[in-house]
């Protein structure tokens, strides 16, 4: 979809890119030229970052919310004159959460649009297929910054060196969930996972976490990635119910998780159901609330959602306060024609994550050479972030050996239809 229509920003960028290339040449030959340009006071070309995410299909909420969070901060920064006098722009393309379009989008972004870096990709199956391209583009110094996925593949060799992660991994999320459930006396844990790299990654995380307690998975069930909210999760519910789980951890997208929760509750499965950050708790709860029939049961009870960012209700955190303020003011929907219709949430954990991505991105750009930033300057700038205060209460650290900045896991649950932070696990203790 994005490849069919040329974005206005892209056209602008091509002109800007040629100017920038010329400037790079000049740098090689005449080292003084950048200063001369800056001194000339001409407007600096904007830095464009390419983003491939689902803006269509059942998981478009993830991409759109992520994009809204990013644009909320970047619009704010650009309005203030940008960073080092440069605007930071995002070129979003839609992959519909499918690997093939994601690969095509990446090639286009690097080869045709010549973006400065890849930024805020969404999804494990898509990102894990894009990783080999980064290897292929290593001479062009292409980096992927802060994708919305917690899989292992891009945190480890061989591809880990091209990727910088802001968020905690699924292993960490699932480990935290398992720890809490086991501590609460629930040892029969079952997993519902999406039958792809993402789901398998979460499944692996749960399994490994259980191994540390000498426990095994009580049950597991997979579902196809294409499943939306209207899918029937009866077979999965039956398989899991047969294992008599004391808690179920779902590794899936929000629409599928919501459908599973609905069918599980309808089938009388009362065990707590947990989901990870990628399951976009806000959209999931929204679907569950909509699905509730008058007089029917409340699907939002006994849910735990692990998050990799703090609750957006926690306005004591400066970053959250800023987020809420800027979201109301600057959050943008994806460009016309890119996304399918979607009713955005005012605040959500996904948009907060996108927002934090943008904050770190702006800081990275700030730490790069002001006059003539190059792609190969990115790793140094990112890895220079030490004990950086993002405004979320925990410091942020990157290094050449550490490509993941945050490790904290937060929990939320639903009270009266609203996601609230979960700190007290006593009510989840097994009987």
């Amino acid at each position, binding site marked *: 979809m994005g490849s069919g229509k040329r974005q206005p920003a892209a056209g602008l960028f091509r002109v800007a890119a040629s100017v920038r290339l010329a400037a790079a040449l000049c740098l090689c030959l005449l080292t003084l030229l950048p200063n001369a340009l800056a001194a000339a006071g001409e407007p600096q070309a904007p830095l464009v970052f390419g983003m491939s995410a689902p803006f269509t299909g059942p998981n478009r909420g993830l991409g759109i919310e992520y994009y809204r969070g990013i644009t909320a901060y970047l619009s704010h920064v650009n309005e203030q004159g940008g960073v080092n006098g440069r605007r930071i722009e995002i070129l979003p393309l839609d992959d519909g959460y499918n690997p093939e379009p994601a690969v095509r989008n990446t090639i286009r972004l690097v080869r045709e649009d010549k973006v400065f870096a890849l930024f805020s990709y969404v999804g494990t199956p898509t990102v894990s*297929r894009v990783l080999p391209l980064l290897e292929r583009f290593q001479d062009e110094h292409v980096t992927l910054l802060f994708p919305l996925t917690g899989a292992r593949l891009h945190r480890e060799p061989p591809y880990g060196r091209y990727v910088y992660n802001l968020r905690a991994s699924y292993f960490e999320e699932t480990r935290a969930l398992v720890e809490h459930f086991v501590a609460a006396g629930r040892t029969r844990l079952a997993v519902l996972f999406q039958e*792809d790299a993402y789901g398998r990654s979460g499944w692996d995380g749960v399994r490994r976490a259980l191994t540390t307690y000498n426990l095994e998975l009580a049950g597991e069930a997979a579902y196809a990635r294409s499943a939306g909210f209207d899918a029937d999760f009866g077979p999965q519910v039956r398989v899991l119910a047969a294992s008599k789980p004391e808690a179920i951890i779902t590794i899936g997208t929000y629409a599928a998780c919501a459908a599973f929760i609905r069918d599980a509750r309808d089938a009388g499965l009362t065990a707590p159901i947990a989901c990870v950050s990628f399951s976009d708790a806000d959209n999931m709860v929204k679907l569950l609330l909509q699905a509730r029939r008058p007089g029917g049961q409340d699907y939002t009870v006994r849910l735990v959602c692990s998050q990799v960012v703090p609750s957006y209700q926690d306005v004591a955190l400066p970053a959250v306060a800023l987020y809420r303020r800027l979201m109301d003011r600057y959050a943008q929907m994806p460009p016309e024609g890119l996304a399918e219709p979607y009713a955005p949430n005012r605040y959500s954990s996904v948009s907060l994550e996108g927002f934090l991505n943008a904050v770190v991105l702006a800081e990275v750009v700030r730490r790069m050479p002001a006059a003539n930033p190059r792609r190969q300057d990115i790793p140094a700038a990112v890895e220079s972030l030490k004990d950086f205060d993002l405004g979320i209460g925990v410091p942020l650290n990157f290094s050449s050996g550490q490509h993941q900045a945050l490790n904290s896991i937060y929990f939320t649950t639903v009270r009266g239809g609203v996601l609230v932070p979960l700190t007290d696990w006593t009510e989840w203790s097994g009987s």
Partner: protein
Amino acid sequence: MERVVRRSRLFRKTLVFMILAFGVIATVMSLAFGQIIRRHLTEEYRSKATALARSVAESDLLSILRGDASAVQSRIDQYLGIEGVAYVVVARENGEVLAHTFVPEIPPEVLKQVRAAAATPHGPQHPAVIDVRTADGREYMHVMTHLLEGLGGSVHIGMDNGAIRGFIRQAVLQQQIITLGLFLVCTLVAFLFVRNISRPLTRLTEYAGRVAAHDFSTEMDISSKDEVGDLARAMGSMARDVSGLISGLEAAVANATADLQEALSSLQAVLHNMAGGLLVLDARGRVVRHNPALARLFRLEGEEIDGRAVDELLGRETTALILPQGSAPLHSGSGVLETVIQRPDGTSVPVEISVAPVALKGQWGTVSIVRDITERRRSAEALHQAHDELEQMVEERTRELSRANIQLKIEVAERKVVAEALRKAESKYRSIFENALEGIYQISPDGHYISANPALARILGYSNVEDLLTELKDGAGTRYVEPGRWAEFLALALEHGEITDFESRIRRRSGRVVWISENARLVPDSRGKPLYIEGTVEDITLRKEYESQLLHQAFHDPLTALPNRALFLDHLKMAMERRRRHEKYLFALLYLDLDRFKVINDSLGHDAGDELLRAVARTLTGCARGMDTVARFGGDEFAILLEELAAPRDAIRIARRILEEMARPFVLHGHEAFSSASIGIVLHTESYDRPETLLRDADTAMYRAKEQGKSRFKVFNRKMHEQALRVMELETDLRRAVESHDLRLVYQPIVRLEDRKVVAFEALLRWTHALHGPVNPSEFIPLAEDAGLIYPIDYGVLHKVCRTIRAWMNGDGTSPGGQPLHVHLNVSGKHFRNPLLVGEVEAALLDSGLPPSCLTLEITENAFVDNAATATDILSKLKMLGVNLCIDDFGTGYSSLGYLQRYPIDVIKVDRSFVAAVGSDADTQAIAGSIISLGNSLGLKVVAEGVETPSQLEFLTRIGCRYAQGFLFHRPMEEEDARLMLLGGACRTKSN
């Protein structure tokens, strides 16, 4: 048909052969093809699966060894896109599944293979192929590869056998379509070939068939040079030879046959046309030959006669005459004889038979000609008969003529007698006509008198019939008062033919109007046309007058001549009807009751009462308008229906005027009497369906007016209705309470102030309603009085109290404390209108054994006022029984000190309202003081009621009151408590 069948048989054989052949070919080829494809595809799938497994083994071995499930999953997901791949499972060395592509879980059959692979860890490096069939019916080619000799785990790839089968199905289908095409082409060729061979053969067969049937007319046109052609030609020449021989033979036979035929037919014609029957017999008497005439004679047409024995036909006798005797002829010549023969159907016929012998096949037979001579004999007989009949007819005619002559003479005599009788009857009926009391007339259909009798003349006021006929020659109708009445009469008569009791008013000659009743009937002529109308007239004026008088009496009050309740309800109903039809139509209902009628009636007598009612009726009629209805409902109750009101205030204005008029004095038998009325009004009459309800509500409003102080009017409203409902409901409940003895008694002690001892009790009635809780006596006692329940209640109370008090007493009539014990009992004023009270009191005293002096009956002041006439009598009777009498609530009513003197009173009770006010009001203090000192000075016991505060007690003691009751001392208590109090000697008051 024959050709088609023959040809298709040949072709069918070919077709069957071809179907079998092609079927075998198709089956064999399908199997072979299927097998080849299966082998190919299976091999291809196996190699594909093997390649994939190797690919996994080589490229992802590291991920598998490290247990990186996500990476492995990412890889195997892509394999699902490869054609034929159904699933991929990657397991570790211990059989633990690292990743798979199943949704939602691995089928147990597949899992078994995975586990099996782990169980044989050092299996072959090259892939093993197993067919797996899952529970849901899918079949897979399961290709398993060990990694690193099983140490690295295993890769399992499932190829969809269903796809292979699909390919095979498709290929077999294609092959079969080709076979079918070939089959159709071959069939067509075979058909053409068979047709080419079989057509000449068929034709040859047909030709042979024709020759066999001696049909040589056609030639064959087969000219082919093959064997079939030669055969055809040989057959053609053979057929021609045969044809010549046959035609020669046939010609010779035909000639001989024609000669014989000629001779035979001429003989046959003679025999057939002979009139006589021909009968040829052989020597044994059997019929050899006969002709149709003989068969006709014996009525045996169409039956077989030849060969029958002749005696069956002619009878034995005749047969003997004509049968040849022996070998010689019977008679030398021929003979003729006449005889009667019997036919087989039973009839007989005379015949003439001529017989001649004939030689027949060497024997002597006979030839007989039989002639029917019936006709000849019959004509001779008919001539004779005709002569006899003529003679007989002449004789009969002569006899008839003489009989008619006698009949005529008798009829002439009878006519004379009838004429005489008619004359007598006519004069009899004329006399009836002339002297009848009823008028009798005949009029023409156009209304003119034809005749009339003197009675009719009298009824119409004429001295004789002639005058009547003369004056009314223009028509009988001029006398009728109502213009169209006469026309109506005529129309009815002509239409129905009869009229009975047709009542109308007519004007007599003098001008006076009288009622007549007519009966008439139409007399038509023989053709049904109206001839005249005859009728009778009766003067029914008297009857009519009586009727209207009765009618008036039925609907009017005889005393005031006002409409009565029935008529009023009728008018009310009509008013309600009008209201329904016209939205704007307003009417109101006034219900009126005289306030002091009883007093006047009792004091001035019934005549004066009647006079008052008449005067009130006049007043009301005067106040009402022309269209209003004023009615008396009996007693002193009146109702007024105000119709066609412009506004509701008109009704109020009229009510006000009535009250004003009623306030004026009435003069009755010389006395001036004052009366007043209370009026209940219903203004909003539109919401009512039934007149009775409307009246009821007016009545309710009237009672409300009376309650509020008489001589006023009250307009009915919703609240009154609800109140009335509540009262009604309460009354029902009260009735039930009385029946089920739910009313109970409590006893309030009366204290002697000087020593504070309980000397008496007042028995009080209590009612606790199941729904509304306790009901105040002031509410339910009036209700009981209105409903007549007061009698059973009071009698019950009387007996009960007497028994109770007696039970409390010692033998000497004192209380357990040694004091004399009194009991006070309230008696409703209603008893003064009922003569039973005295008897009941006496019975209660006798039954219980209570000394009469211990019983004090309390009577309200109003009871005396309302029943002045009877009170004296009843009170003195009670007094004579020995009971005490007490005036209750003294000072509240029309207190008349005279009562104290006139009636034998022993006790007065100072009303609680005075006691309550003594603390605050100097005037009340004075009144209470004077009542008490008056009582004391008259020697009466004075009891103060409702003493509640020490200050009241102090005041009462100070002014000399000796007895008191009230909450200050004791509340009313249950029977058992009162008894215990007496027994315990706790007769002291609880306070000072």
